[in-house]
């Protein structure tokens, strides 16, 4: 008899356990081939079996060596619950089951390494937006609109809006005429496909999103824009007319910008905007992180880097204050495109967001074209779990506070507010977007939902979230050429297009009952909440 080794890792210590039925299994091997985490293997096991082969029952017990599918006892190869085995099994013989007794968090830091993963915050499950409903319904004197037939103007500004008394108007024969250039403002759809880089995403996933954006614009005339993320863009795309649907992001690592700068003279059209990323909601105070496993050859080429962990610094170099960022980054980015392209800033929501927003609102150069705040429920391709779960700030009250800070000074609308980080977390992005808009956002941005539409199976209950490993089983967050082929680009793009069209109809279905044909930005009186604390914090009606 062996000595009990209680400290050895067993399957029961892992977050997911594989249930395998030898009776149903045909030993086709598909599950083992499909598992990108190498969590299961085919082995022989000596088992007691009872068989009866004649016309009459003649049971015989035997000890036989039979092939089985076994889960590995290994933290490095722990099952993530992605369920690819279950998806591919022709005989429903295998599936992962959540293990409530998992000791993973205690064991996974061996060697002094932190736990890293992708996905979203797994701790905060409560959602403020789900406790708010659109409670001001037009009836009687102010009739509702017809969502199907009325014409709606569902557009949001992206760019620095001047106060009316600063518009350079001259009057001639009773007409107002602009006499000088004003900051560029693009009116776009209030839903931005947010910053996921080539690198974090496979080229095919990025392409699927770009394809969906092109289709939505060209075929459905929905001016949806996407942000490139911090990882550069394909040169061919930068030279094409489709560049106008893309906002180019610059983050602290400046990845991809060599190619972007070199492509500038060859651009036929201006990009939709520039987003300076200061921070992100999923890992505030931390820079971008692309593990070496995902730095494939094409990623090295686009970013101009060797194969190594690519860790963007937490701050932009030489930036020590907001004022300096305004002067240096905004100026250079604005100047690069000759003040024709709006330049916005993206920050992680924080206890200090209002101060930052105030500072930008008061900037004398009037060149900040948008303030993107990203909440704690934002997603990421890779982060330390401690950052993902324990740092950040909820987005709803922060957006509201920023809006009200602008209201207090009469500056609302001058720097459009875009909110993200958990928008669409439950799959109902239009409702989330509408409520955020009523609270003061001009529009919303979302990323995680897009990859879910591409087939991502990750969730906020510890399923998969393996975006950082290079082993993404759906071919979305990996650069492994074998895995990326799992993603059907056209199908993924189609899903995104369909979802966005449904989003558009759902927006109408929310605007119509409150009787608005334009976005009700700041129309907080349209909302009620069943939670007193939320009512008080957001300044909306309490209802019960």
């Amino acid at each position: 008899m062996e000595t009990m080794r209680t400290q050895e890792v067993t399957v029961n210590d892992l977050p997911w356990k594989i249930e395998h039925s030898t009776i149903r299994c045909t030993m086709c091997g598909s599950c083992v081939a499909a598992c990108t985490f190498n969590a299961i293997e085919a082995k022989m096991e000596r088992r007691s079996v009872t068989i009866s082969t004649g016309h009459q029952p003649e049971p015989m017990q035997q000890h036989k060596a039979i092939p089985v599918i076994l889960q590995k006892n290994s933290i490095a190869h722990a099952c993530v619950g992605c369920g690819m085995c279950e998806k591919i099994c022709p005989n429903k013989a295998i599936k992962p089951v959540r293990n409530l007794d998992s000791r993973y968090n205690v064991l996974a830091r061996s060697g002094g390494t932190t736990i890293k993963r992708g996905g979203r915050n797994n701790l905060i499950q409560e959602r403020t937006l789900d406790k708010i409903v659109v409670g001001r319904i037009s009836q009687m004197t102010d009739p509702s609109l017809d969502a199907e037939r009325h014409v709606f103007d569902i557009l949001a500004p992206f760019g620095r809006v001047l106060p009316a008394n600063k518009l350079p108007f001259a009057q001639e024969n009773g007409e107002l005429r602009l006499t000088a250039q004003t900051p560029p403002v693009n009116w776009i759809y209030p839903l931005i496909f947010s910053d996921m880089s080539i690198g974090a995403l496979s080229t095919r996933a990025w392409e699927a999103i770009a394809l969906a954006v092109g289709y939505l614009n060209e075929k459905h005339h929905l001016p949806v824009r996407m942000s490139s993320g911090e990882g550069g863009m394909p040169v061919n795309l930068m030279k094409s007319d489709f560049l106008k649907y893309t906002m180019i992001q610059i983050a602290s690592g400046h990845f991809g910008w060599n190619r972007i700068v070199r492509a500038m003279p060859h651009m036929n059209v201006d990009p939709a905007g520039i987003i300076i990323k200061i921070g992100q909601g999923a890992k505030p105070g931390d820079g971008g992180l692309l593990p070496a496993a995902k730095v494939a050859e094409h990623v090295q080429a686009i970013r101009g880097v060797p194969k190594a962990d690519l860790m963007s610094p937490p701050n932009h170099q030489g930036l020590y204050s907001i004022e300096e960022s305004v002067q240096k980054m905004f100026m250079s980015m604005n100047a690069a495109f000759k003040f024709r392209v709006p330049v916005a800033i993206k920050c992680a929501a924080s206890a200090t967001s209002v101060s930052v927003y105030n500072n930008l609102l008061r900037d004398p150069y009037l060149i900040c074209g948008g303030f993107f705040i990203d909440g704690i429920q934002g997603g990421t391709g890779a982060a330390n779990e401690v950052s993902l779960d324990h740092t950040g700030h909820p987005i709803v009250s922060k957006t509201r506070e920023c809006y009200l800070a602008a209201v207090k000074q009469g500056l609302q609308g001058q720097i459009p507010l875009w909110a993200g980080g958990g928008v669409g977390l439950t799959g109902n992005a239009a409702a989330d977007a509408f409520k955020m808009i009523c609270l003061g956002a001009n529009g919303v941005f979302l990323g995680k939902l897009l990859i879910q539409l591409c087939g991502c199976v990750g969730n906020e209950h510890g399923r998969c979230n393996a975006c950082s490993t290079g082993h993404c089983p759906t071919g979305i967050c990996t650069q492994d050429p074998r895995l990326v082929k799992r993603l059907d680009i056209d199908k993924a793009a189609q899903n995104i297009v369909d979802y966005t069209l449904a989003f558009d109809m759902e927006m109408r279905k929310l605007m119509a009952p409150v009787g608005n044909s334009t976005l009700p930005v700041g129309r907080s009186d349209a909302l009620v909440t069943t939670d007193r604390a939320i009512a008080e914090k957001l300044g909306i009606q309490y209802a019960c």
Partner: protein
Amino acid sequence: MVMQDLYGEFAEYKDKPLLSLACTQKGAKLVEDYMENNSFVQVHEWIPKVNKQPGLDIKAMPYYIFRNYDYPDYLAKASKEAKEELLLSTRLAIRELLEKNDQGYAFSFWPDVLTLKEIGDPRDIATYFGLWNDSGELLAKNIVVQCRQNTNYEIVRYAAHPFFIQGYTLCANGENTFYTKNKEFQKSLNKGYIGFESDSQNFLYTLHYVLHELKWPIKYYKHVITPLQFEELENRPDQAALQAIRQSLGHLEINGPNTIIGMLPDNSMMTCCDSKKLRPVVVGGDEETIAISSEVCGLNVILPDRDKTKDIYPNEREVVVINEELEVQRWKQ
């Protein structure tokens, strides 16, 4: 009711700011002291002789005072703007004074403009103030009157139409569901944009802001409150200006259904509607009178013999302006 371009009792004092008050005796004293302390010299006073016959449906205040003042001496050579600013500040100060002590209401303080507001049955209110008698005391060329105030919320005198600020008068039929966003924006635009007892005050403050503060031509008022859709903007030669206006004043966009009737300092009157959910409005008249009425039955009562085929029913993109010479202009946004 707001009357402008006054004759009768006030014919001799057209350039002297006229204060319209409804107050208690104590309120009257507070105002008197305030005006004296601030160097306004009273030049004329008219106190209506009221009919207190029993059975009238009116919640009357004890005193109704209409007084013309001379500007303080130190303003003798001041600019028009400085005088306008003083009149506004004075009205706001009096309003605050009366409100704080709950002693009455100050409705307007402006040359050649008189405001009378009361709560009750409009016919009885007219009887109370002797408005049915043709005594010749209260005469004006321009009158904006509304016989029903906001019935959705609390009945207060300041919520009663028409509303007035610095020569601009406005009443409305309908409602404005962008009240909250309008209000939040207007509060910081001008110290005179206060009260907000009615969502229709938003219409007045925007009218005042566009015409008086920004000094834009009147046609841009419509572009501010009901901006053209982006698709329509694209095909306009003035797209750049209109888009700049739309984005800068997005928070002043209104949302109906409503119809607006306005009176401007130059004695013209105007009307327009919300762009998607109309409330009725009709313009009609004869050689001597032109009226804008929210319902045609109103016109039929005061101008039964007019040529009805010439009545104008403005559409959702239209603005109608009647100038002092009774010329009617109409144009599309």
